[in-house]
């Protein structure tokens, strides 16, 4: 591959891709330069595939053929657009109209009415893109996208991730070309340092410093590794980047390889992400075919190749030393640091390990320069951060925001608020290692330091919104159950400490807690933070500590009043039937596995609290909302 060839591929594909990227007014004109009258983009990511996008794509292709449109309409299967709860998602260009929750039946109409006859099917559009007066706005103007800034996700939902030429069309591999042909390794590292980029996996360590250390360590063999073992339950940004833009990770790893003097890269990816693994494999194969991986890249004498290694479902392998131990074929247990991976990492060689999202920023930083990147975000946290917004929020999905955006903007504007008229209670960030941000801190700017200051952490980007129906003690218990399961067992503070913490929480949620337990938890937590071998154990107490700090009254209610204010903890609640609402349909009594419900037909029923096992089956089955918890 030469620069001329790269430019030729870029020019040949530019127009087709630009139809999806330009401002509305120019898209129409651009489309006329391409072979396709219209383009239909459908998300083929995990979220939309789960919602049935494969059936929709099949129906679309079949219908296009039947209507003789398959030559003039291009169908592109992309990665994630972000709005996962509205999937399967479909965008038609050059109009830029956005169909949500597409079905095979709906597609039939879209093909005939819109693609063939030119009339947008308004009733199938995403409702936020249709104004009260009937005009249609594009996706970038909706509340969900307006405040977002897409750098790491720049190509997700825009290009075909299985076609390297589309990646090249959006300046792909120009960053690598620039690094290899006009920068020294030190200049590359300086650029990354100056950009202010910090590790997006949660640690927040300056990426450029990591690279500097690895370069400074002498050695003939060095490695570049990518952490795609996205373990935080509730985070899926790394998966979406691999599914939507795998080439950018390969390019970034090659740049890192050049900077530190490595010729081999490993991507450690969760086996639970089959689509991501498949797309990445295709991407690596294509990059090899085009000479962008392999020997003598761009004729500069630089060799680099990438290999995939599958994880096998161990949360601790997201920790850098454990990940490397796992790639080496062992139980994924962490090693003491120092020596740090930059000195002695994979197979005992100097290694740079970065997270997927961190890498996704690199090609852009090299291509556009650190000055551009560092102008985004806040003083200590440059650039953007991707969050997987989930839980009790209207717009569930992936959002990328400039650092410094407030939690309020994320929840109220981008997220569209809390559904069912409920009240916002807290946002949980950082998963099992993180903490929660309560309503009183809703105006906190999201960056590394502000979140640490209030006892939470950025984490890898899971952001779970909790409403008034969530019990904070129960949530803390949920995370501790997770860390007990996932503690590797190598060091005692974590192996025993997590179990002990869970026992306290179990005791409290069963109504047997004592006020002294809160002090005991506090003391144990401090020991674990100080003496655990790796971040898993050091951060495992965070979910308890932050909920105890902000929701101490809930702990006290469980301990002193033996009540769960949110009505979640089974031992502390009872199910009751509201006589006024009960129609006597007998459905609850018939479904009760404990035979705890009695009552005559068409008469209000009663639950016998001594027999009730609090399974909630009656409540799920009641059609009249007559069963409540107290």
């Amino acid at each position, binding site marked *: 591959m030469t620069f001329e060839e790269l430019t030729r591929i870029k020019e040949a594909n530019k127009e087709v891709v630009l139809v999806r990227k330009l401002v509305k007014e120019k898209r129409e004109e651009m489309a006329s330069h391409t072979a396709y009258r219209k383009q239909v983009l459908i998300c083929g990511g995990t979220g939309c595939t789960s919602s049935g996008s494969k059936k929709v794509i099949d129906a679309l292709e079949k219908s296009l053929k039947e209507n003789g449109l398959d030559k003039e309409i291009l169908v592109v299967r992309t990665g994630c657009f972000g709005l996962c709860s509205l999937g399967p998602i479909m965008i038609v260009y050059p109009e830029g109209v956005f169909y949500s929750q597409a079905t095979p039946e709906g597609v039939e109409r879209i093909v005939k009415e819109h693609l063939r006859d030119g009339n947008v099917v308004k009733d199938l559009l995403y409702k936020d893109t249709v104004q009260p007066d009937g005009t249609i706005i594009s996706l970038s103007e909706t509340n969900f996208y307006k405040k977002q800034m897409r750098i790491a996700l720049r190509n997700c939902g825009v290009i075909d991730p299985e076609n390297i030429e589309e990646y090249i069309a959006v300046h792909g591999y120009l960053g690598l070309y620039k690094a290899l042909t006009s920068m020294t390794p030190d200049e590359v590292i300086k650029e990354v340092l100056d950009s202010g980029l910090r590790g997006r996996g949660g640690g927040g360590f300056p990426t450029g410093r990591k690279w500097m250390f690895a370069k400074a360590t002498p050695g003939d063999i060095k490695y570049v590794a990518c952490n795609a073992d996205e373990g935080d339950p509730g985070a899926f940004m790394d998966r979406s980047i691999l599914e939507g833009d795998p080439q950018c990770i390969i390019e970034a790893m090659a740049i890192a390889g050049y900077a530190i003097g490595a010729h081999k890269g490993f991507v450690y990816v969760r086996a639970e992400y089959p689509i991501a693994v498949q797309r990445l494999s295709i991407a690596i194969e294509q990059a090899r075919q085009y000479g962008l991986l392999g020997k003598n890249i761009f004729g500069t004498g630089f060799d680099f190749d990438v290999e995939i290694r599958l994880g096998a479902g161990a949360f601790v392998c997201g920790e850098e030393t454990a990940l490397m131990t796992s790639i080496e074929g062992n*139980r994924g247990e962490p090693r003491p640091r120092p020596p740090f991976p930059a000195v002695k990492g994979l197979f005992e060689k100097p290694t740079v390990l970065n997270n997927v999202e961190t890498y996704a920023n690199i090609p852009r930083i090299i291509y556009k320069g650190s000055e551009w990147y560092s102008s985004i975000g806040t003083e200590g946290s440059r650039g953007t951060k991707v969050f997987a917004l989930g839980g009790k929020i209207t717009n569930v999905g992936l959002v990328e925001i400039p650092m410094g955006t407030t939690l309020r903007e994320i929840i109220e504007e981008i997220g569209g608020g809390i559904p069912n008229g409920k009240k916002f209670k807290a946002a949980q960030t950082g998963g099992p290692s993180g903490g929660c941000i309560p309503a009183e801190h809703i105006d906190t700017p999201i960056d590394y330091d502000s979140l640490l200051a209030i006892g939470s952490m950025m984490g890898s980007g899971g952001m779970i919104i909790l409403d008034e129906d969530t019990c904070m003690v129960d949530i803390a218990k949920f995370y501790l159950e997770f860390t007990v399961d996932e503690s590797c067992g190598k060091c005692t503070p974590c192996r025993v400490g997590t179990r002990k913490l869970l026992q306290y929480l179990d005791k409290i949620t069963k109504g047997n807690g004592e006020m002294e337990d809160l002090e005991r938890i506090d003391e144990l937590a401090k020991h674990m933070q100080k003496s655990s071998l790796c971040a898993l154990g050091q951060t495992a107490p965070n979910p308890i500590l932050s909920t105890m700090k902000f929701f101490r009254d809930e702990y006290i209610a469980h301990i002193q009043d033996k009540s769960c204010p949110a009505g979640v903890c089974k031992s502390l609640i009872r199910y009751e039937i509201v006589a006024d609402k009960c129609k006597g349909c007998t459905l609850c009594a018939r479904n009760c596995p404990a035979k705890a419900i009695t009552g005559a037909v068409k008469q209000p029923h009663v639950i016998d609290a001594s027999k009730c096992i609090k399974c909630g089956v009656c409540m799920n089955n009641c059609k009249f909302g007559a069963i409540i918890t107290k």
Partner: protein
Amino acid sequence: MAENSLAFKGTPAQEEQLLAVIAKNKELPGALLPVLHEAQEIYGYLPLEVQQMVADGLGISLSEVYGVATFYSRFSLTPKGKHKISVCLGTACYVKGADKILAEVENKLGIKSGECTPDGLFSIDSCRCVGACGLAPVMMIDEEVYGKLTPKEIGAILDKYIAEEGGEQA
């Protein structure tokens, strides 16, 4: 769990496949994990007999293979059902009531998470996030994802698989 394990019934064809996998990866640094992944693909699980073959093939001890196989949750030492049910208990699903979904699946099939029905048709496991958080709560049966579930829907979903089985037998 152990009650459900069946006698090892590996075929010569499977063994041939496994030996080929071992030969292909033998020189690879850190070969054990990739080999175990493929071995599980071939046999559906990793009984001791298979672990022994891997140990012999890679020239490492059985205890080392066993240590790795039991460390990672994706590797299973017991056979799974014909249809593998996996209820997501990730955070996004949990706050939307995934525990009730799991309870209902267990209730309907009369087995606990980690077990297999006596007829070998279903096994239940919980998993941590399939990354379909937008559809929470989520359950997977084999490769199929069922999203935005309520406990009420579980019965009908399971019946579909049971009916299919009846169709095959008929």
